[in-house]
């Protein structure tokens, strides 16, 4: 079946502009996560959605970052007034329970470059 998809795959934007990144999770997955990976760094948690519960926004680095998940499926991460330090690969993942455990399925990421 289809995996997690993200669009666009690459985005170049000028400093100060707003950007929207999209994530289509695997159908039926109730949990959705956003991470970012800066050059040479590990994955940094941004935000997590679980069903209809209030999202865990504890990883968002500033109020310029926001995300929503419509209808429990597609999610959009919005970065307002982009800065050069926002340049990174933004990864989305969705999660399902498998037997006694659970795992995340990642999309290919969106590479954001702020010039």
């Amino acid at each position, binding site marked *: 079946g289809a995996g997690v998809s993200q669009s666009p795959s690459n985005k170049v934007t000028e400093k100060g502009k707003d950007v929207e990144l999209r994530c289509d999770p695997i159908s039926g997955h109730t949990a959705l996560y956003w991470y970012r990976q800066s050059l040479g760094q590990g994955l940094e948690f941004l935000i997590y959605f679980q069903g209809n519960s209030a999202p865990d926004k504890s990883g968002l680095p500033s109020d310029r970052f926001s995300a929503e998940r419509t209808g429990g499926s597609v999610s959009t991460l919005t970065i307002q007034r982009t800065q050069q330090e926002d340049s990174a690969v933004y*990864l989305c993942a969705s999660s399902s329970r498998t037997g006694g455990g659970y*795992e995340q399925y990642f999309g*290919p*990421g969106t590479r954001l470059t702020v010039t």
Partner: protein
Amino acid sequence: DQQVKQNSPSLSVQEGRISILNCDYTNSMFDYFLWYKKYPAEGPTFLISISSIKDKNEDGRFTVFLNKSAKHLSLHIVPSQPGDSAVYFCAASTGGYGQNFVFGPGTRLSVLP
């Protein structure tokens, strides 16, 4: 303060030999651990997981060992293959399904033919 550490940024192993990737954590509340593999320009893919009630989990060439008292886990790949060359991330979670995962910085494994 990093809660999940992978102190070796890179590792080189000869094809056919064992690869051992290490991960240390500081939060004793972590009770579920995962390993992911990441190729360039792709998202991470799940490899293997282990719950804190176990000390070993095996899946084919991949085995994860958990030492709770030392807050240490390791991933063993035997035998290593050139296609295993990738960045490996250790991740940890608390509280069960759907909780936030904390990732380590990754270890780049190179398997030499």
